[in-house]
């Protein structure tokens, strides 16, 4: 029941929020997100004790034998926690802001949260697809309506990309459905023995859908523009959680269902991912726009994660899981700072910035911490995941690991360059007006930094979730193959 509650709370409160006005909507949605967080934490606790109690099944479409089947395992719990934590943080950050038509804004945010949670929880392919799209639609409206001046075409591009991709996935789902004894359940899907030929082309139907969402080179073109044009809270959702949908999809639905397909194409997928890493990092270095820089850095990070998934061994998979959580936290932190800078100075271009550190020391310190975490400095949360991924990738093929390793160096280059340009150097008339973080922003950042350090020093809870304890059996099976 807890799992259903996780979806229902944001869904219902989201619908209610549409009817609320201004501050009411703000407060209500914040409360709702806390409630979700509470349930998620409670589910975590429950998970330690009795993992099996978190499954829930009900009839949905008897004609198709499709069920409302949700459940939690380590992988999904981690992402559920990430989602549950992120939304309160986002709401706190923007608490001081007042959005036009706030009811709709917060309502759509909560709906997208419901969709995301649904994606992570679904154990029925059709249900999964359902939530996959449900997460997309609110985000589409959020970006278009509250985004920048080019938001409409940019977001539409994003929408069509994802929509087309997911439709291909739908074809794949339908095809596999007819190979099963008539069931959409994950168990039925994973226990199939599809021929190599089938797996080979089915792989691409799924892969394209997930690759667009992650995004992996060359399906990434929607991403920088969308991140740039979206309102920052939405960008946080997009980059912090939504891209994880793609990674999650690969881990939950691609690798276990089509192990042979993955085996056949893993090299290609890794090559694409690695190209993406290098490509995105290089562009990030050249970037002067703050938001785009972070967007490209995100592509690079995701590329690494995707490469690690397809490397497909115990370490890399565990690393990806840990990193999914940490990357989410870190990038939200980055976006909060960017949001603050953009809010205060109405400027996104780094060439106009500089010397903020002297005027807003707290901001500067926090940005440095988050940036270093993003570079995956030891003792920050980013380190452990990245380390596991690299070692996994190295096991698969040292050359790939070597090339991907460049990414760490490049990441350091562009992040430090960003810090230097924004925080240090000569301050100008504009940056001199910078005021430091306000209470709400401070609170959100404090939480993030706390998580960064706690997990940096003590990653065991995450690793527990990632390894063994909740790891889907099928993944384990693949790993040992």
């Amino acid at each position, binding site marked *: 029941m807890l799992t259903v509650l996780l979806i229902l709370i944001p869904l219902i409160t989201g619908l209610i929020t549409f009817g609320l006005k201004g501050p009411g909507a703000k407060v209500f949605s914040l409360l709702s997100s806390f409630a979700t967080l509470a349930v998620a934490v409670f589910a975590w606790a429950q998970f330690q004790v009795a993992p099996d109690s978190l499954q829930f099944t009900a009839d949905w479409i008897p*004609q198709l034998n499709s069920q409302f089947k949700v459940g939690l395992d380590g992988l999904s719990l981690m992402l559920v926690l990430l989602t549950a934590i992120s939304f309160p943080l986002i709401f706190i950050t923007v608490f001081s802001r007042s959005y036009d038509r706030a009811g709709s804004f917060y309502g759509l945010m909560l709906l997208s949260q419901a969709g995301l949670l649904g994606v992570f929880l679904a154990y029925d392919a059709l249900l999964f697809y359902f939530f996959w799209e449900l997460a997309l639609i609110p985000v589409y409206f959020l970006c278009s309506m509250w985004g920048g001046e080019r938001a409409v075409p940019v977001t539409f591009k994003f929408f069509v990309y994802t929509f087309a991709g997911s439709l291909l996935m739908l074809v794949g789902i339908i095809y596999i459905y007819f190979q099963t004894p008539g069931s959409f359940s994950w168990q039925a899907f994973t226990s199939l023995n599809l021929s190599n030929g089938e797996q080979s082309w089915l792989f691409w139907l799924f892969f394209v859908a997930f690759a667009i969402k992650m995004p992996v080179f060359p399906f990434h073109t929607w991403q920088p523009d969308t991140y740039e044009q979206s309102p920052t809270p939405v960008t946080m959702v997009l980059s912090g959680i939504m891209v994880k949908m793609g990674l999650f999809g690969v881990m939950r639905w691609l690798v276990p269902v089509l192990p042979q397909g993955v085996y056949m194409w893993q090299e290609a997928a890794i090559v694409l991912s690695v190209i993406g890493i290098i490509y995105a990092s290089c562009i990030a270095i050249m970037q002067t726009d703050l938001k785009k820089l972070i967007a490209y850095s995100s592509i690079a990070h995701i590329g690494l994660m995707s490469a690690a998934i397809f490397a497909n061994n115990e370490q890399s998979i565990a690393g990806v899981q840990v990193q999914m959580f940490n990357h989410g936290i870190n990038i939200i932190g980055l976006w909060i700072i960017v949001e603050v800078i953009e809010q205060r100075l109405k400027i996104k271009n780094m060439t106009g910035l500089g010397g903020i550190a002297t005027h807003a020391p707290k901001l500067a310190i926090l940005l440095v911490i988050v940036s270093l975490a993003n570079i995956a400095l030891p003792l920050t949360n980013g380190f452990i995941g990245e380390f596991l991924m690299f070692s996994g990738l190295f096991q698969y093929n040292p050359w790939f690991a070597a090339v991907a390793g460049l990414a760490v160096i490049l990441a350091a280059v562009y992040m430090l360059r960003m810090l230097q340009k924004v925080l240090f150097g000569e301050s100008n008339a504009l940056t001199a007006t910078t005021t430091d973080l306000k209470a709400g922003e401070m609170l959100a950042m404090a939480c993030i930094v706390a998580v960064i350090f706690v997990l940096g020093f003590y990653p065991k809870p995450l690793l527990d979730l990632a390894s063994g304890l909740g790891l889907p059996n099928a993944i384990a099976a693949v790993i040992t193959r």
Partner: protein
Amino acid sequence: MNAIITTAVFGIVLMFVGLFVKNKQQIKYFAIAGTILAFIANWYDCTLAGGSSVILHGMVEVSKFSILFNGVAIVSTFLYFLLCGSAFERVGDDVADYFALVFFILSGVMLTASFSNLLMLFLAIEIISIPQYILAGADKKNLKSNEASLKYFLTGSFTTGILLMGIALLYGATGTFNIREMGLGTGDLSPLALCGIILLAFALAFKVSAAPFHFWTPDVYDGSPTVFTAFMATVVKAASFVAFMRLFYVSFTGGDITHHWQLIIALITAATLLIGNFTAVFQQSVKRMLAYSSIAQAGFMLFAIVSNNEMAAQGMILYAAAYSVATIGVFAVLLKMKDYTFDGYNGLARREPLLALVTTIFLLSLAGIPLTAGFFAKYFVLSAAVQAGGLLWLVILGVLCAAISAYYYFRVIIAMYFRAGEAETLPITGGFKAALLLAAAIVIALGLFPGLLLQFL
């Protein structure tokens, strides 16, 4: 069968009501009452458990499918009257006659799901078509309406000729008009039968406006009075598909017969998808866009015919319901707009948030986004095609076209929500809004639980 009789008789009653009742509002209420009556009659049919209280002489066959489809058609018409009924009087003075004609069409629509004799197929199609010719030209002084009417009439009756030739050849080959007694065998077909099947396929493809026989559709739908286009493009279209599917599913299945026509229909499907979607992208008027989108949607409904299996029947019902309700809703809002171009919708969300919201829901449904009925409609027909096997290329083409279709549906959404403007509308009553909400609720409910409808099958 009772529903069909009730509807037809009620149409006649309405004609006479129009002679004595001059209050157009009352006529509308009367017509709405008629749909309710038809629904009750259909419910009564349902309780007869597949039998009939009327002697049918093997011409008509009452089945679960037909009763369910009749229900869908009646409810769609009910919604249509609720939403668009007041627009009838803007077309001309003979409001009661228009309603009566719609009732006649409805009775033909119901026949399409239950005919078991080619004669009834022919009659059903004609009962549907002839009133439409009149409705298309109802705006007598408007040249575009005249043009639509004439074009529709000429192409429609030409098609009738081809349909009849197909029927005649089939009769020559088999000696019966009964679709269950055709007995075309399992091996090779006689040339007569093959020609008959192909001519029938072409004729029905005409009626459902599948490419390359679609050329009349945009002009007719665009030229006709909008309120009637709403009906033509929805219930009627679905009915033509049901007739198409019923004929091919019942008579031309078994053995290798399917292979004789499946490829042709598959190619028609592909052409329809491509042409419908790509041309819809370039339209400037929402009405014309909807005309092309109806061709595109026809492409998806054709999947049900190509795949020719049990699931296709479910998909067809669902598609008929989802597509009809959503399109009627979009048209209802369109009828309230003063400007039919995309720009005319600019800023509607600020002026009339509810209208914009329900339109969005309808458009999402048409685009086939989950949570709306349109998703499951597409899902079922695509699944049917996958199940039929050997059509995966078509399915993939279909989903790519679905992605394209998002483009033109979202143009309206974009105009409503993200563009500034003063979308001018006609006065909107509370009742209209309530009816729109009802339609939207149906779309969402079917989008969450398609079983609500399919459980009856």
